[in-house]
């Protein structure tokens, strides 16, 4: 079976986030003075072929930890496939 996952990779709290800062700084001029706390990260979508969801989920965890994020500066979280399929 194929399970679809989404991995969200975000900078660890407290680290400088130049991207988020640049976006936030540009918003007031566009008329959005009420937006703050902007942080920019990565979104990765992937399909895993496995016999059951638990196996697939464990693999995604590992891929996210070893390849998709750098634990020194980033955190990640995995959105379950149900969420991924449901949303559009």
């Amino acid at each position: 079976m194929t399970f679809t996952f989404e991995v969200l990779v975000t900078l660890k709290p407290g680290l400088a986030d130049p991207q988020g800062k640049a976006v936030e700084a540009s918003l007031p001029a566009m008329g959005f003075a009420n937006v703050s706390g902007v942080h920019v990260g990565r979104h990765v979508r992937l399909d895993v072929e496995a016999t059951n969801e638990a196996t697939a989920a464990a693999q995604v965890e590992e891929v996210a930890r070893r390849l998709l994020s750098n634990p020194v500066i980033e955190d990640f979280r995995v959105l379950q496939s149900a969420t991924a399929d449901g949303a559009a």
Partner: protein
Amino acid sequence: MTDAPPRVGVITFPGSLDDRDALRAVETMGGEGVGLWHADHDLRGVDAVVLPGGFSYGDYLRCGAIAGHAPILDDVKAFARGGGPVLGICNGFQILCEAGLLPGALIRNASLRFVCRDVFLRVETSQTPVTSELVPGEVVEIPVKHGEGQYVATPEQVRMIEGEGLVVFRYANSRGEVGGAANPNGSLADIAGVRNGAGNVVGLMPHPEHAVDPDVGPTGGQPLFASLLATALERAGATA
């Protein structure tokens, strides 16, 4: 009045890097370079506008995305609607796409790496302010330097772009043959530069402003600036 050199404006955004180079290229080729500032609503009466290369706003979100909302872009759009010649180089090209003045978009190079090297461009049309003194099929050598120069567009857009002859330059080898290693970034159909429907707005990833001085490299940028200055001069005459 007729002896006055055409005035070419170069916009500086926060993070523009090749703005001074573009001004120098304009002056080297006999024009008058006019510095413009992103936050001003003022094109200072120039006869042509250049959006230079660099990393406006760090290119942090998407290349050119934030600059596409800069105040001066309103004026650039009005200038373009009035037929004024507008040239976007590298980051300037990205900004023009983001601002909707040119079709398509630019994403990470297929290699995922920044690339700085000389390339050859095959001219596809003379119907633009930067190719008016060139003929289709001619080849010019110019450097590229970018990390996000892969030109992409939706299939409908591609049909439109090709159908209406909006491609201005394609990556090629020195003999003008496209394909393969000549394409430095994986661009769709080897597209290095496009124009708008009216033909007065052009964007390209390579840097003609870095190809006018024989001491530092190839000189393929000279005919592009010569064309731009000639177009600007005509316009100056017409609006004078």
